[in-house]
């Protein structure tokens, strides 16, 4: 029996994970942390095995109070860090504090914490560099996107990932980084989801790369398996569905217009200004030309994770594998 701390518990993935952990008889107590007020967070019935706390992780003192307060008192052994600012257009010091500095603090404090023995960090496929010279099928040793020209959304994700990786083997607690495929669902911060949800999908003419997307259910399964696992390392967490970009748009039921890439960026910029939508073509441009598919062999062998929950596509239903 172990207790688990989940940060980012009010995100759609966090909420599903908390539900799952509360139902898991191997878990003694779940300490859920988010930025929503307690009366509106986690709107599902739960007993005494769940505690919700509202904590602003952008403030280092609050993290210290959390870890050496309730976390110590509950004897939390595993921390699942999901908190990440999800809006691609938001930038600045506060966003960076939430994305990177919060994780840095958790890593540092976990190292000398009396009860924490395992820290899971949910990272993203966005950290990988996409280039003509690089494989489409991406393993964990694939080069990361270290371009200084990337927007903060990408830079923060890469920095957080590397910050966790740099502590592996040096800290007393085990560190696990899960680089997950984009989870198609509301509240996941998925760029692809926002792209597909638009009234019309504008994509580069002449290019139709392979994309890999995950269901929230599969990401939650991977997090659960890593919670109960042992050892540390970096793992790709692919989704069940791998298909051409055009096919994903078609299956989502969104009309698509192929057009020159030079026109797509300003049009999505205009959409953001008019509608407040979040998709940024600049972040996704290379993936929408050359593709990226996560190789999940390592997660299958070590974490026993295999994606089994396909996306329930609005048009045509879920995929069937031969």
């Amino acid at each position, binding site marked *: 029996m172990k207790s688990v701390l989940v940060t980012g518990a009010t995100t759609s993935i966090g909420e599903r994970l908390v539900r799952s952990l509360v139902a898991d008889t191997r878990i003694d107590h779940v300490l859920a942390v988010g930025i929503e007020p307690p009366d509106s967070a986690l709107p599902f019935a739960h007993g005494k095995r769940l505690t919700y706390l509202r904590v602003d992780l952008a403030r280092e003192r609050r993290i210290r109070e959390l870890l050496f307060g309730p976390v110590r008192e509950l004897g939390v052994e595993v921390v699942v860090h999901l908190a990440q600012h999800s809006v691609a257009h938001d930038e600045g010091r506060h966003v960076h504090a939430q994305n990177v500095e919060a994780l840095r603090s958790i890593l540092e404090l976990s190292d000398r914490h009396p009860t924490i023995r395992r820290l899971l960090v949910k990272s993203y496929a966005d950290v990988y560099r996409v280039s003509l*010279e690089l494989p489409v*099928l991406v393993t964990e040793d694939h080069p990361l996107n270290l371009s200084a020209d990337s927007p903060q959304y990408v830079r923060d994700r890469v920095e957080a990932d590397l910050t966790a990786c740099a502590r592996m083997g040096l800290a007393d607690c085990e560190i696990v980084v899960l680089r997950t495929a984009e989870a198609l669902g509301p509240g996941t911060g998925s760029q692809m989801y926002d792209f597909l949800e638009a009234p019309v999908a504008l994509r580069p003419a*002449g*290019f*139709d790369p*392979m994309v890999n997307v995950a269901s929230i259910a599969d990401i939650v399964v991977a997090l659960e398996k890593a919670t109960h696992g042992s050892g540390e390392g970096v793992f790709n967490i692919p989704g069940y*569905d791998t298909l051409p970009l055009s*096919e994903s748009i078609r299956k989502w039921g969104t009309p698509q217009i192929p057009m020159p890439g030079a026109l797509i960026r300003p049009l999505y910029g205009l959409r953001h200004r008019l509608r407040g939508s979040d998709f940024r073509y600049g972040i996704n441009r290379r993936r929408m030309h050359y593709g990226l598919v996560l190789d999940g062999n390592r997660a299958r062998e070590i974490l026993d994770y295999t994606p089994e929950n396909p996306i329930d596509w609005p048009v045509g239903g879920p995929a069937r*594998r031969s």
Partner: protein
Amino acid sequence: MAVPASVARLFSSAFGGASVRDRAERLEFPDAGHGYDLFGLNPDFVALGETVASPMYDRYFRVESHGNENIPATGPGVLAANHSGTLPFDGAMVWMDVYRNTNPPRVPRAIADYFVPSLPFVGTLFARCGVVGGSRGNARALLESGNLLLIFPEGTPGIGKPWSKRYKLQDWRQGHCELAIRYRAPVIPIAVVGAEEQMPQLAQIPLGGAMPYLPIPATLFPLPVKYHIYYGEPVRTDLDYTPEQADDPGVLKEAAQRVKERVQALIDKGLKERKGIFR
């Protein structure tokens, strides 16, 4: 290129005929769930590719296949061929020849230069027919899953070789042998005879960027040369070496030289046996 697979199926049914459809139906490939493999190959587009390339294969270049029993029926393999002809018709003809002369049909996964996937429309169509970008990771994944790789060790300099150097193998790279040794695959030497005369080049305009140069050919269209494709006995890189030797420069040089000599010998045999450029 966002033609749905259903349109490709319809096109190949209408213009390719029953044999083309039958071959596509029998094609074994690792379906990633939506009818495509992880790299984008789709059997309906393979059938479309065969439909489009068939007139060239059957009537224009009148391809004659020799020794295709040397193509492995199962398991990984590296097909290593000479490269020439200004435009890569030789790649398309070898692709067709392997696809048609294996049972069950196998699609050779041609390893293209880096710039190919950056070509709009063409890059996508090629990917649907099994072509992949020339990165080590792509090649590794394909060999580990038991595919046939088609590699032209002369690379882009081979396809642009001048008339005076036809049928003389250019700088022969070693990457194909490194892959074959590391991932336990035999190398099947291939000679393409005919392609080296199809489109003599007058000049090359350097472009920089992803595409190295723009060729200026002497003819607008390739000449109707007759293709002879020869498959030699496999070089057993999977048995003659250990995977650890893939890091030994001396071993790689020796293995690549063995393959090069086999390809050159097949070329010489083909040149001797043919009755003329167009026959």
